């Protein structure tokens, strides 16, 4: 870390508190207990629950639960009852190995884990090999990657295990070198005696091993002794990624697992009654098997190209889906009927009331790697490979779907090509297992891109209503009512909450699961007097999930737009108003930073407008400043099959994520969060019409592209006194989408009430066919070289 406002070599800025801000969250200085496991080479372990204490013994009542106990605490505390071990081994080549019970989807947790181990063990990061553990059912609820919780929950246990290993290696070295441990130093995997004699970890591995499992108490390195943690580090798979050697599920070579794809129904969640032309399809080139399953008609062939051709040739008799005939307007009307009324507390007669209602359309959480899985289901066992953030739940669901005991199902977790919440569910793994069983053969199952926005998981449509009252420059009340299509949390978080019911803050009592998650994540970071935020959800017919940052992007947009309205009402500048009302020092520092670095209030051409917004979550804070270009020559840019529109020309994000393991990884997460925020505010949504979603391509679902990308981007990583990491993976989204929304409102003089803003314009694409369910592959690729 550097001092205030210095630039690191990679452009990441770090800032140190100079305002005497309160001490950060700390860890106890007591020793931790770890284990040396019996084995022929050194194997050590720590309880995954180490360091996971509830944030507060007694949680006060409202209004601001997440300030004291948030979703991260829930996830961290939920490790407590499992009491299971994570293991690090040091082999005879001096390499440390760690199979992490979490999933890497691009967020950089394997790199971070290697850094933590290298730090505590005094070895090179390159000599630490972090892999993804298969489903470990004994971990119960403690193998879920989500809620930006991995570093929060794994940081201390990994350090404890590594510290145990170092202690054993030092003891073995003392014997080998005939020295006292106190006379030895460790560096880069080598133990050295004062006179220079040395021995490597690899040479010590066998001697450091134990023939019985023993508990030992260890201490951890002090933060001021860190060499690796807190320094920017490139991803452990960077070279593999740029050479094409990085393997994803579809790249695995599992014997006889041939390409398999499904013909899917023309309406959402419809199902097949029969395949009318089975013989014709079975006779097509390359086709080996056809099977009718609940979700569609599966075909297995020599190549995916032949699967696509077969899917397009299928004549299927379909059962209509549960949302037949529904559209955006009918679902929105259903939400309006479910909205919980406002109950403004008594305020003085002269107080002014401001109301805002914002609508958020369905959005697809699909990654670039579509849903996919390999399954080999035999009469007595099943093996599955897939990108799974909740592999134990997938294991249970696969077992149930194919009628095997859970212990007969092996679930291998494969590095994912993005997640954004999409990989919380084992939809593809379960479907692949069902198809494999039906065909009696291994399958490599892939969803066609067209299937993703049409049948895949979505961020639910929602409305967020805000009512605020203000008098004499003060905000007296702030009420927010969020109403959403039901968010599916059936990926294990529900089981965690249920198991912990007795230990949760008292004011969660009686709330549903989704209301609990809402309450655990939503914090209004302003002193707005009496604050209430409530969630209601209706309609379980859609395939939904926790898209990156769950409720927060929508809730924050409504809150930040209202904050600008309040500022205008009291005739204050949006930045100064926020600075005055913000109740959280981390947020205030982030806000001041983006205002300064981004040049809040600087002179800009007519039609270019700034927006500023903040967010507090995951024990940290973010602030974003954007400049939005709404000039005609920008909005009117014409790019083939694209949505151009207003362009964010500059984005500055400041993030306080507690102790930062890898600032480069954090910066990457923030850049991605800004890209998401731009799309959520301006361009990306799914249109429901006549019982199905129209989008079927990346040229229909308008995620941010190069022509939407801010030419200027800066991320400031705030220095933090916290001893523990906060959450990072989702933290960049909410303030980003809000800042763009606020800039758009300021630019146009009208607060938009539906997001993304282009949803209601003329449809920017020609919808692809529903029958056939997938588009034909083009043949003109050689005419389009560039």
């Amino acid at each position: 870390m550097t001092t205030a406002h210095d630039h690191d070599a990679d452009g990441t800025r770090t800032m140190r508190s100079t305002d005497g801000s309160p001490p950060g969250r700390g860890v106890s200085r007591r020793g931790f207990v770890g284990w040396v496991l019996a084995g022929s080479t050194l194997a050590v372990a720590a309880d995954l629950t180490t360091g996971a204490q509830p944030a507060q013994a007694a949680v006060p009542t409202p209004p601001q639960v997440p300030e004291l106990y948030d979703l991260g605490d829930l996830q961290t505390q939920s490790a407590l009852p499992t009491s299971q071990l994570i293991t690090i081994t040091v082999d005879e080549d001096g390499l440390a190995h760690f199979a992490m019970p979490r999933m890497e989807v691009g967020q950089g947790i394997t790199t971070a884990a290697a850094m933590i181990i290298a730090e505590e063990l005094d070895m090179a990061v390159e000599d630490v090999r972090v892999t993804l553990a298969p489903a470990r059912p004994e971990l119960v609820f403690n193998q879920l990657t989500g809620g930006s919780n991995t570093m929060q929950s794994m940081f201390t246990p990994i350090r404890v295990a590594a510290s145990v290993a170092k202690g054993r290696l030092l003891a073995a070295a003392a014997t080998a070198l005939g020295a006292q441990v106190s006379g030895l130093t460790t560096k880069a995997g080598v133990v050295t005696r004062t006179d220079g004699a040395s021995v490597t970890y690899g040479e010590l591995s066998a001697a450091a091993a134990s023939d019985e499992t023993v508990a030992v108490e260890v201490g951890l390195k002090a933060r001021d002794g860190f060499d690796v943690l807190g320094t920017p580090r490139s991803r452990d798979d960077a070279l593999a990624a740029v050479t094409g050697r990085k393997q994803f599920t579809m790249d695995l070579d599992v014997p006889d697992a041939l390409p398999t794809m499904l013909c899917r129904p023309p309406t959402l969640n419809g199902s097949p009654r029969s395949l009318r032309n089975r013989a014709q399809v079975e006779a097509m080139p390359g086709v080996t098997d056809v099977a009718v399953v609940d979700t569609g008609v599966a075909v297995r062939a020599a190549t995916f190209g032949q699967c696509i051709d077969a899917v397009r040739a299928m004549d299927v008799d379909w059962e209509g889906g549960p949302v037949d005939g529904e559209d955006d307007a009918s679902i929105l009307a259903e939400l309006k009927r479910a909205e919980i009324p406002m109950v403004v507390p008594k305020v003085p007669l002269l107080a002014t009331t401001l109301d805002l209602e914002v609508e958020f359309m369905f959005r697809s959480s699909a990654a670039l790697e579509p849903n996919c899985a390999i399954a080999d289901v035999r009469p007595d066992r099943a093996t599955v490979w897939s990108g799974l953030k909740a592999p134990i739940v997938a294991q249970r669901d696969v077992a149930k779907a194919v009628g095997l005991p859970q212990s007969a199902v092996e679930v291998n977790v494969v590095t994912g090509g993005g997640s954004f919440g999409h990989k919380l569910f084992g939809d593809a793994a379960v479907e692949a297992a069902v198809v494999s069983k039906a065909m009696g053969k291994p399958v490599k199952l892939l969803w066609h891109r067209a299937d993703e926005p049409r049948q895949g998981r979505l961020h639910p449509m929602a409305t967020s209503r805000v009512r605020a009252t203000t008098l004499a420059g003060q905000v007296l009340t702030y009420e927010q009512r969020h109403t959403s299509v039901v968010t599916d949390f059936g990926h294990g978080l529900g089981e965690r909450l249920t198991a912990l019911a007795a230990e949760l803050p008292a004011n969660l009592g009686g709330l549903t699961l989704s209301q609990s998650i809402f309450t655990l994540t939503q914090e209004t970071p302003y002193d707005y007097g009496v604050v209430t935020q409530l969630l209601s959800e209706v309609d379980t017919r859609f395939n939904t999930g926790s898209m990156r940052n769950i409720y927060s992007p929508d809730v924050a947009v409504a809150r930040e737009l209202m904050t600008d309205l309040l500022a205008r009402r009291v005739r204050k500048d949006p930045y100064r108003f926020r600075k005055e009302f913000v109740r959280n020092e981390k947020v205030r520092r982030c806000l001041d930073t983006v205002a300064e670095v981004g040049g809040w209030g600087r002179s800009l051409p007519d039609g270019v407008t700034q927006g500023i917004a903040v967010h507090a979550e995951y024990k940290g804070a973010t602030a974003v400043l954007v400049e939005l270009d709404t000039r005609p020559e920008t909005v009117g840019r014409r790019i083939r099959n694209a949505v151009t529109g207003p362009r964010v020309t500059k984005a500055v994000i400041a993030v306080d994520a507690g102790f930062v393991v890898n600032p480069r990884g954090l910066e990457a997460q923030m850049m991605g969060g800004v890209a998401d925020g731009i799309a959520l505010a301006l361009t990306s949504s799914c249109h429901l019409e006549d019982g199905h979603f129209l989008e079927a391509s990346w040229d229909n679902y308008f995620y941010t592209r190069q022509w939407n990308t801010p030419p200027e981007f800066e991320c400031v990583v705030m220095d933090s006194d916290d001893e523990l990491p906060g959450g990072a993976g989702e933290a960049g989204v909410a303030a980003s989408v809000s800042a763009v929304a606020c800039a758009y409102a300021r630019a146009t003089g009208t607060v938009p009430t539906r997001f993304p803003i282009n949803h209601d314009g003329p449809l920017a694409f020609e919808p692809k066919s529903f029958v056939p369910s997938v588009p034909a592959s083009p043949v003109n690729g050689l005419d389009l070289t560039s």
Partner: protein
Amino acid sequence: MAQHTFRVNGETVTVDVEDDVRLLWVLRDVLGITGPKYGCGINVCKACTSHVNGRAFNPCSVRVGDLGPDDEVTTIEGLADTVDDDLHPMQQAWVERDVAQCGYCQPGQIMAAVALVRAVREEGRTVTDDDLDTIRNICRCGTYTRIREAVKDGAERM
């Protein structure tokens, strides 16, 4: 079935497969060359971007039967062999700037970037922001800013 002969990453290959199977699947499912990724199958996402005779193309949209024995296909796996180094300068720029997150789109991004730099150079210019805006490859992780920086950096090294 028919036999098709063409060149991939410097070697002549012959495959036994129907004429109309798109090259992406011949590469991935028949030849086991998995660097080019599937993201859409309709020449939109550009995750499979590779080179044919030195120019960017998308094998998801080319029938294998349309390739001749002299056509040279280069995938990300063969890019470094086109220069006298372990990595192509564009790959080097990508590594040094730690561009990738999940990495799924990055083989296609790099192949598109190399072709863009070549095309701009043929016009006697250097890469501009407007040129970068024309890159259609999707990155759902949102690494676009680092991609822009790496393309410029890689162009200077090429």
